[in-house]
């Protein structure tokens, strides 16, 4: 059976609060899919609707093409890993891992064997008889994953499971999760508010804001070609300059701003005569580049080795952030100086203002 997950126009209203409106997307079997958004954007609500902890007030959830309406969390082919992990503190590690098998009526000897096998998989062999309270954060994390995998779910739902770990461990666990997903072929749906986490691990990412779906795309697409202003600002850093779109042709748009006429790729809603904004990634801005020239005053230069982060103000007072390769650093003068930056049109996108 395939374990694709499809959301068809689902919505959720709690009392008078609209948590999720009209969200549709399809996650393919075996995909690592992330839902990215700031806290309160409705992403956890979506995950809980897929798991079956809450029923959507509108729309349908389909797993493997089957409508999940009326099926409780214990009847769906999903397993969830919680932000708090929710390990059972009074059961030894092996009973934690084998809990789902116990629920399915598997005999004790078989449960123990399976638990030991999974403990080997997560490199915690011999920890079966410890209590969860005796493990470190990373170990508990891995036990939670093993517990979810033990029931051989078609879909694994992960609710910011790495947020409690320190940076180093988090980066390590990212790689481990990604490898585990490739090895098991299970569909992963991963919730996070950390965009670098989503970009680094996922096949595709859905970005949400205020209960609305903003864009579903590959990480690369999301970064290079944001569909909405929210995505452009939330995913990665950006320089935003507003103006009136004067001309749209052959996928290019020209926009008339207080800093001059600039051109970039035409994105969603870019129509001539409309108000719009051009979004330029920091790494696209090059000092001394004559195309799309912008004057700015440098305020601070943070040297980071391979490149330097340059902070400043454009002539109209808007903030500037540029990431300049060290090799080009000679062109970017010291703080206080006036410098001209430019960017290639294919590295910027013009979106119509909503």
């Amino acid at each position: 059976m395939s374990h694709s997950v499809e959301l068809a126009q689902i919505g959720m209203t709690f009392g008078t609060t609209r948590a999720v409106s009209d969200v549709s997307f399809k996650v393919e079997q075996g995909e690592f899919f992330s839902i990215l958004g700031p806290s309160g954007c409705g992403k956890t609500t979506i995950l809980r609707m897929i798991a079956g902890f809450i029923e959507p007030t509108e729309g349908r959830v389909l797993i493997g093409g089957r409508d999940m309406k009326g099926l409780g969390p214990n009847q769906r082919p999903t397993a969830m890993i919680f932000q708090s992990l929710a390990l059972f503190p009074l059961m030894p590690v092996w009973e934690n891992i084998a809990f789902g098998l116990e629920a399915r009526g598997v005999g004790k000897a078989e449960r123990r064997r399976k638990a030991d096998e999974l403990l080997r998989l997560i490199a915690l062999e011999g920890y079966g008889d410890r209590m969860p309270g005796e493990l470190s954060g990373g170990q508990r994390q891995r036990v939670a994953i093993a517990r979810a995998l033990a029931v051989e779910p078609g879909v694994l739902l992960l609710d910011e499971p790495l947020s409690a770990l320190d940076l180093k461990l988090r980066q390590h666990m990212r790689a481990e999760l990604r490898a585990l997903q490739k090895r098991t072929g299970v569909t992963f749906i991963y919730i996070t508010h950390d965009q670098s986490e989503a970009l680094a691990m996922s096949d595709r990412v859905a970005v949400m804001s205020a209960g609305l779906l903003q864009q579903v795309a590959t990480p690369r697409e999301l970064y290079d070609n944001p569909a909405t202003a929210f995505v452009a600002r939330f995913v990665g850093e950006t320089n935003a300059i507003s103006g009136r779109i004067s001309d749209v042709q052959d996928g290019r748009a020209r926009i008339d701003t207080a800093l001059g006429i600039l051109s970039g790729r035409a994105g969603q809603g870019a129509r001539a005569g409309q108000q719009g904004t051009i979004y330029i990634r920091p790494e696209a801005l090059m000092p001394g580049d004559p195309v799309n020239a912008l004057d700015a005053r440098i305020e601070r230069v943070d040297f980071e080795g391979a490149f330097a982060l340059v902070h400043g103000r454009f002539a109209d007072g808007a903030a500037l952030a540029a990431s300049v390769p060290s090799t080009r650093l000679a062109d970017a003068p010291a703080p206080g100086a006036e410098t001209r930056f430019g960017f290639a049109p294919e590295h910027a996108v013009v979106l119509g203002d909503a």
Partner: protein
Amino acid sequence: MSVADRIFRGLFVLYLAAFALYLFAPLIIMGAAAFNESRFPTVIPWQGTTTDWFGAMWADRAMWQSLWTSVLVALCVVVVVVPVGTAAALVLTSLHARARSFAYAVMVSPLLTPGVVIGISTLILWRQLGVGGGVFLIVLAQSTFIICYVMLMVMARLQRFDRTQEEAALGLGASRGMVFRRVTLPFLKPALLASGGLAVLQSIENYNTTLFVRGFETPLTVFIATKVRTGLTPAVNALALVIIVATVLGAIAYEIARRRQAARPRG
């Protein structure tokens, strides 16, 4: 330290000593009187030391009968109050804020009702149904308010419960029954044991409520109170001393068990 402070401090130490005397002198005198040969329990005059009163107490059939009644009642009370009190705590913690504070007020009201009123109202209701005072009504009347204690203790424990554990278990395919049996109940176990112990103590020591619904039964407290009025001998003190020692030992054992539990690493 100024002189005034010193005097104040001295006076306070005196006060503490007087308070300790107030707390313990009655118990010590009552216990000591059990060893006095005098026919009336007292420590003055001391007519000679004896342990005969323990023998007299031991030989008193009525005492054994009333002890049995009290133990039987206490066991029945535990069987009633632990499940009901737990259910009340679970229902209450599942309610939303508004309904919750109203339900809470209703559910703690038996604690604010005088014990005699609980006994009387139970007696009246069941007379109407043709049931007179006796073990059944004692259990019922005592349970009415002991349930509150169980509920409060279980609620206190539930406040430290991470409910995502229940969701995690459900998500792993467990039935609601299994979630309750394997996750919720084991977490509540310490509170259930403690409240069961408290319920036994509360039941055995109850007098005000029991008095009205006892019918022809004579539980231990009624037995002692009756003795005081109709022929008090140091045999009653002997009984009191045994009960005191047993309760204090029980309390200490409970406290040790609780501390050991608290010292264990938690998940």
